[in-house]
């Protein structure tokens, strides 16, 4: 067994090294881009670092940004473990925000402990419903969930716009597209007198839960079989489709918690600019972490730092926020480019890792 542990450790080290190399190369390439547009990349990067981890306030803001990324990343991972690619976490985040908002504005309670759990449930149901649609289309008809989850992101955004311009418009301020402010009891508790809130506890809790459940339970075992070899799972009479649909529902519900905690703890109302693409960032975080729940927590905090650091430079150094997207895209490219090489090093068979990708767009006849 000792060699087994070593093997695992070696793989983890190689994965970490691979992800770090990818990030490093991406930073270098983006530095060239910054030079080309007349920016000093060293200044920008130091600024981002200062804004992310420079002092305790910046670090708290990093954790605030990391929270929705973590929840979205975990959402992506849950679906991915069973071979479903959920690119719709951005939309599921917005649906979660809608569900939580509905409860916050319509259920009249006197205590937080009555309202908040109900908001959480409302968010999870809406988010779960949003990912259920692509899941059921995929397992019954064979429609690629990559495309449907993505298109539903656009529908979710329009739904939010419809609500805040229409039925849920703030009656006290019709000129500004947003809902009325939530009652004070709808605010998720904050930690350490900062903007950090309970959402991060949800994230870390869910990560730990899955890190524990996946290797130890029967459901976890079956899930891993389905994820690595759906044909074998079918042959073993596992209920592959049912598992996959539930994975997608849970995936959407977890992503919805990001929307719930954003409207409850940060915004205090529903508005359209709720997420600067946390869903897509979460997707990247999940891949950088190679779908490992604990690693997702760590990667999310690092990327959260990137986001909040760049956010602080937006005003002080007039650095457009789009820089973050360029950098994220670059990191993703570099990660994908090095993936095969790392897989070879971890002695994972070439064929196995290659056949994963294409099925996504194929109809399952």
């Amino acid at each position, binding site marked *: 067994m000792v060699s087994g542990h070593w093997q695992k450790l070696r793989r983890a080290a190689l994965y970490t090294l691979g992800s770090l190399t990818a990030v490093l190369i991406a930073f270098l390439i983006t530095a060239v881009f910054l030079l080309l547009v007349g920016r000093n990349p060293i200044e920008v990067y130091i600024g981002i670092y200062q804004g992310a981890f420079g002092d305790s306030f910046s670090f708290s803001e990093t954790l605030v940004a990391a929270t929705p990324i973590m929840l979205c990343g975990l959402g992506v991972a849950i679906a991915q473990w069973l071979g479903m690619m959920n690119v719709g976490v951005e939309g599921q985040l917005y649906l979660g925000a809608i569900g939580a908002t509905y409860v916050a504005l319509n259920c009249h309670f006197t205590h937080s402990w009555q309202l908040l759990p109900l908001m959480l449930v409302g968010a999870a149901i809406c988010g779960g419903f949003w990912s259920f649609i692509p899941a059921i289309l995929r397992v019954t008809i064979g429609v690629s969930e*990559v495309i449907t989850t993505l298109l*539903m992101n656009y529908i979710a955004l329009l739904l939010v716009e419809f609500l805040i311009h*229409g039925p849920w418009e703030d009656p006290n301020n019709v000129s500004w597209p947003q809902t009325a402010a939530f009652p004070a009891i709808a605010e998720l508790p904050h930690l350490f007198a900062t903007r950090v809130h309970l959402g991060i506890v949800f994230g870390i809790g869910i990560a730990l839960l899955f890190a524990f459940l996946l290797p130890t339970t029967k459901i976890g075992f079956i899930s891993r079989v389905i994820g690595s070899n759906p044909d074998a799972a079918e042959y073993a009479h596992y209920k592959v489709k049912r598992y996959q649909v539930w994975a997608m529902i849970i995936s959407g519900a977890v992503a919805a918690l990001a929307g719930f905690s954003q409207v409850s703890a940060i915004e205090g109302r529903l508005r359209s600019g709720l997420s600067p693409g946390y869903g897509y960032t979460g997707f990247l975080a999940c891949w950088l972490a190679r779908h490992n729940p604990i690693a997702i927590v760590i990667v999310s905090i690092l990327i959260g730092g990137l986001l909040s650091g760049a956010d602080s430079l937006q005003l002080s150094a007039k650095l457009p926020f*789009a820089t973050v997207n*360029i950098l*994220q*895209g670059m990191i993703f490219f570099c990660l994908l480019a090095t993936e095969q090489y790392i897989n070879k090093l971890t002695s994972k068979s070439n064929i196995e890792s290659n056949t994963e990708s294409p099925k996504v767009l194929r109809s399952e006849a």
Partner: protein
Amino acid sequence: MNIELSEFLIAVAAGMVRSATPVLYATLGEIITERSGILNVGLEGIMLVGAFTGVAITYQTHSVGLGLVAAMIAGLLLGLFHALLAIYFQANQVGVGIAMTIFGTGLSAYLGMDYVGKQINTLGTFKLPLLSDIPVIGPIFFSHDILVYATFILVPLIAFIINRTRLGLTLRAVGEEPRSAAAAGINVELTRYIATACGAALAGLGGAYLSLAYAQGWSENITAGRGWIAVGLVLFASWNPFRALIGAYLFGGAISLQLRLQAAGLDVSPYLLGMLPYVLVILVLSISTARRKNAPSSVPTALGLPYIPQV
């Protein structure tokens, strides 16, 4: 028939043809790419960069033609990059596409900041003589610009090339049986690089049509998911250019109808109407997939798989 209603319908249909054009270019391009076995789902990012490049070059040179060419070159370069990652690095192609979308969104937003709301030359309307005078058909199909007319030729042309020429045979062989193709002396990798570059160039052109002819200016995220719509339409079309035309017109019809209804003062939230095209694409994709469930699959066999030459 009521004159007002018939005018309304003609306007919707004419709008359909225009709204369909950007998506149609991207869809046709993706058909070429996927026929070679490469899956490029990053069309959204490529279209965005194309749309931006078109506006930027047109603004600098005052030439729409140069803007369009530049957009195609930008698309071509991104296509080559996609192919490099997919072929040389054997990367997960869906992953690359999503990365391309994030990257293209960021790049176009960054560089496009100075171009938001800028007045530019746009692709002018050119009514085809005689043809545009035909009642009903004329205003719907022949009162647009040259890039719309080009699709009328491009659709049958691409179908002809794929199905009836030696070039098309090479393309299909590479997408279906890369090893056999290689054994027959075809350069699999080169074919795939070229197909991906051509496909992405068309996506770039589609993006530029959006900014130079359709919306007539640059704005952030101008494509609003059209790249993903195109990826979906390729599946709907089962890699057939004529069916791609139908799919693009369905999508364009939904866009056009929604805009016309709003203009006509229909009392429905524009945001609800705006969902129509996306819902429609998901619906037609589902229906067509369900109907084909038991039919022989037309998916290029090697689609999305990395090619590992035998040594």
